[in-house]
């Protein structure tokens, strides 16, 4: 015979035994007492099984070596240690007709459906299928010992039967008390219940030490016994239907039938989960908690592990008795049959983190990679300051493959872009590009990027890495709303992009085979080969130095990167990560949307009115900007400088001791030897000198670096 380990002691079981039956076979109550229904409804047989607390042992088949531990007496089980979770298998299935419950009514319903030619799936706990809940779709979640199943179904029949009513009276937490069906199961397993007494409504109390030895009846008589079968009728097991009132289900059999409530409880534990007594209920009733829900919430009756399966009929009867009105059952909520969080989680993946085609190159170069806007990106390659100097004084590569990139084309494309962007678009010449911001209808900055004109009716748009996905939605939504004829193709994950930046960037391109004549000038873009690889080269600058973004097909990213690194070696080339980039752009006063801006940053608030042409007829956000232009507006983003180490990003900015805003970006400028910052002042008058981190900081015009922008044009 096989054994399970129960409270540290091996006990034998018969094939087919549940853990609860196995315990009874060994002369033990599976928990510490209380009526057993062995139907999965109550929590009276719960124990810790293989480390999982609160497992219904009546629903768990005994298997060799299973470790069962009763919950500690008088307290709750430990939630367990920090061990790692096991993987749970999930299966996605579909079925036409599903009948839940294979009792008489379920079997009849299934047979009738089959006779009409339907495919029918029957789910029953006896076969290991515990239905956790019925959800929209309709869908059904089923817990099995070998995993969890998500069913798509068309028709659901509930034949879940009725749950037998537990006794409420003194002594009802003793061992040796069974419902009739539980007793039948025990006896079917070959166990002898000894001197067994069957009682019904005449029951008054149980007596005994640990287990029942005497039953007291309402007439005062006492009957000695080894075990008791209590027959108090049933209540419909309709919890699945009540959980999902809008999911169409057919209910058949006892689950659909009206059942009389038991007599109002007089004494004893009504809620075995919380050890809540009739006296407790009277206590809250007398304090004025008269609604069924208020009685439940104030006594906590019905809020334990069985979720009212045991106490609900008695609780309703109690309220009916005290108030004269029979209340409806309280709300049922998943889970109808409990699942562990590992089981619930099965099949779910939180995020998909994307990798650029240069991911392997960054790893080889020792980059610290971190997650930004759903991508893994290099934060630094070990030393952000030397990366910074490579940009300022030599040449450097940055992986900007994550930038949003979008091709747009069509007869209405100029019209569409004019309406989308607050800047002029029609006057951008082919081969030229323009920096643009995009706004929402409130006139708040959503994102920024470039517009590159490729032809009369063809453009390439770029967006920030974090904004790319939303940008595609934004463009498509407006184009459709306006009914304009524009084709849209997002290229974000199909094109790689490498930013070649620094005063020697032009020299590196020369070495990569780009003649001075072919090299685009500032704000030009051109399709040329770089190191033999076809690139769309955009000349712009985020770092403050001459920069060439080389957009290309992603299958050639590695080749291009390696060629540039090799050609650039004599020039002292180094790649730079985001940490250096954030400092470089900060010295130029370039705003990072989402870091320096807030949810409601208008162009005015971030000093970018110049990027808005209100004289245009219409563009998204224009009406709001015109409306708000005359409103007093205290909120303004400023540049600051201060001596000493850069304060933490997020430091508050004070004027005369009052908090007026916070630092959004902060950097110890290697160039200047002091801190450069951006941050908000949201109170008038705006001060020229503020306090940050207990030190003095001064408002400074931005950019801090190369105010004339000569270096970007070099």
């Amino acid at each position, binding site marked *: 015979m096989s054994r399970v380990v129960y409270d540290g002691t091996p006990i034998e079981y018969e094939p087919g035994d549940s853990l609860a039956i196995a315990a009874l076979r060994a002369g033990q109550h599976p928990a510490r007492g209380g009526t057993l229904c062995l139907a999965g409804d109550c929590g009276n047989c719960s124990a810790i099984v293989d480390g999982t607390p609160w497992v219904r042992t009546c629903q768990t088949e005994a298997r060799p070596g299973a470790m069962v531990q009763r919950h500690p007496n008088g307290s*709750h089980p430990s939630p367990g240690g920090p061990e790692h979770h096991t993987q749970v298998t999930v299966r996605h299935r579909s079925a036409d007709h599903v009948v839940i419950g294979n009792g008489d009514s379920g079997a009849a319903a299934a047979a009738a459906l089959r006779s009409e030619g339907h495919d029918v799936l029957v789910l029953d706990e006896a076969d290991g299928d515990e239905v956790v809940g019925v959800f929209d779709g309709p869908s059904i979640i089923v817990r099995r010992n070998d995993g969890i199943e998500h069913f798509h179904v068309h028709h659901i029949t509930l034949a879940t039967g009725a749950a037998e009513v537990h006794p409420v009276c003194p002594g009802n937490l003793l061992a040796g008390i069974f419902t009739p069906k539980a007793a039948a199961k025990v006896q079917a397993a070959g166990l002898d219940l000894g001197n067994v007494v069957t009682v019904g409504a005449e029951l008054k109390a149980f007596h005994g030490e640990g287990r029942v030895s005497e039953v007291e009846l309402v007439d005062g008589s006492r009957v000695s016994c080894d075990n008791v079968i209590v027959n108090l009728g049933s209540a419909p097991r309709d919890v699945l239907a009540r959980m999902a009132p809008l999911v169409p289900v057919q209910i058949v059999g006892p689950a659909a039938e009206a059942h009389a409530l038991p007599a109002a409880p007089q004494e004893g534990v009504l809620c075995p989960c919380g050890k809540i007594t009739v006296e407790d209920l009277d206590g809250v009733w007398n304090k004025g908690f008269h609604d069924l829900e208020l009685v439940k919430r104030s006594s906590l009756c019905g809020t334990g592990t069985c979720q009212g399966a045991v106490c609900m009929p008695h609780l309703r009867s109690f309220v009916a008795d005290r108030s004269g009105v029979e209340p409806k059952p309280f709300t049922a909520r998943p889970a109808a049959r409990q699942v562990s969080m590992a089981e619930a989680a099965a099949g779910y993946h939180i995020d998909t983190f994307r990798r650029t085609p240069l991911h392997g190159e960054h790893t080889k170069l020792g980059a610290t990679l971190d997650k930004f806007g759903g991508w893994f990106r290099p934060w630094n390659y070990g030393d952000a300051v030397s990366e910074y100097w490579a940009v300022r004084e030599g040449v450097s590569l940055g992986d900007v493959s994550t930038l949003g990139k979008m091709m747009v084309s069509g007869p209405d494309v100029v019209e569409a872009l004019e309406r989308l962007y607050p800047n002029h678009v029609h006057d951008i010449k082919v081969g030229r590009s323009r920096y643009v911001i995009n706004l929402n209808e409130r006139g708040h900055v959503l994102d920024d990027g470039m517009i590159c004109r490729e032809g009369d009716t063809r453009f390439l748009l770029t967006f920030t890495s974090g904004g790319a996905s939303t940008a595609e939605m934004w463009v498509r939504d407006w184009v459709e709303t306006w009914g304009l004829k524009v084709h849209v193709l997002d290229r974000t994950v199909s094109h790689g992009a490498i930013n070649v930046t620094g005063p020697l960037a032009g020299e590196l391109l020369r070495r990569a085979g780009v003649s001075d004549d072919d090299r685009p000038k500032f704000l030009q873009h051109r399709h040329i080969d770089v190191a033999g690889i076809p690139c769309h080269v955009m000349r712009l600058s985020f770092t403050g130095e001459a920069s060439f973004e080389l957009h290309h097909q992603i299958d050639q990213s590695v080749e291009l990167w390696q060629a540039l690194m090799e050609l650039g070696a004599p020039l002292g080339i180094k790649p730079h990560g985001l940490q250096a980039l954030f400092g470089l752009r900060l010295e130029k006063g370039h705003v990072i949307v989402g870091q320096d801006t807030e949810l409601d940053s208008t162009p005015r608030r971030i000093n970018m009115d110049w990027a808005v042409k209100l004289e245009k007829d219409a563009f998204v956000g224009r009406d709001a900007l015109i409306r708000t232009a005359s409103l007093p507006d205290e909120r303004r983003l400023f540049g600051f400088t201060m001596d000493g180490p850069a304060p933490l990003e997020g430091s508050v900015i004070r004027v005369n001791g009052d908090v007026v805003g916070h630092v959004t970006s902060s950097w110890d400028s290697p160039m200047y030897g002091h801190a450069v910052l951006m941050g908000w002042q949201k109170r008038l008058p705006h001060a020229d000198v503020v306090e940050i981190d207990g030190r003095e900081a001064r408002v400074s015009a931005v950019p801090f670096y190369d105010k004339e922008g000569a270096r970007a044009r070099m």
Partner: protein
Amino acid sequence: MNEFVETLLDLPWQVGDPKPAYDVVIIGAGGHGLATAYYLATRHGITNVCVLDSNFIGSGNSGRNTTIIRSNYGIPESVAFYQHSLEMYQRLEDETGCWIMHSQKGQIWLAHSVSTARTEQTRALMNQAMGAKTDYIGPKEIKDLCPQIDLSGGGRYPVHGASYHHEGATARHDRVVWAYAQGALRAGVHVHQHTPVTGLLMDGDRVTGVQTSKGNISAGTVISAVGGNVTTVANWAGVRLPIRTHALQAFVTNAHAQEFAPIVSSNDLVFYVSQTPRGQMLIGAEYDRFASYRQATSFAYLQACSKKSITMFPFLSKLRIMRSWTGICDVSTDFSPIMGDTGVPGFMISTGWGTWGFKAIPAGGEQLAQLVATGSAPLIEPFGLDRFAKEAAMADPSSAGTR
């Protein structure tokens, strides 16, 4: 006898129907409505007040939230308001004599990336400046506070650090409602359950009372403290709101021994977990992204929340889900609450509580009562409905609603 039953207060209900007229009628007998009534009566002597609810007291979001009290917001106005509320909560048991199971646990808000570490650091610095006790802490301190955490985040969400909000607390939501209900009832306020308001009484463009299932009631001031269906009530008065209603779900496991001390949230993963006084692990996350008035629980939510939680706390993977629930919450366009005047004389509002506003009950009630009584309530002035037309939104990057 269950230990959580014994000290319940009593609810001295009035007998009979509402009177035909009150100085103030409050729609919604949840935390905010009852607290407003309580403070009107106890702070300002305004006791001719009636609170109406279509169901039982606390039947809406007050009974469905995740009981967290915190003030670690991101903008000065919010930190000041919520810190005041947090401190009022700390004194509420003494003031009302009711055990609301207030328990200071501390809240850890995890960052799993450079960019969210910046967010948490920013939160800590702003909190400190505005009087909320929050520090940025590193992985070792996090592990000390919460040994069950997997600092590697399943190898995928490594913990960079966290903001630690020392005074983060929980209290039992129902008991907060009952404490205010009892205090208000004792002070003479009328509270009528199962009395749905079906419309507003208007005189020109002024609100003069409410229509109810038990007849019309006139009022000097009508306050909507309705959750979920606030748009309907506002529409009766012709008031347009920047509010969208979303479902918000949460769940608990079975009860376990008290071994999980703090409240832990994750900035990147967007979930939070704490252990209730009864030992259940309480887990929640963000609201469903689509607008809905339906209080439906979805398995997808249990699935996502479970996965996020067990990724950071492997011990949870074996714990079984006992019950889930869903409420509907009012999310404002800038994710901050809206309190005070509506532009319609006689009609005030308390809404936009996003993920339910439990933490704001004391200060929200106190300030609204003060506004009714004195015409001025500085703490909530920035949160008026007129802020949108004034382009003075209260967009808070640290509000739970912004993610």
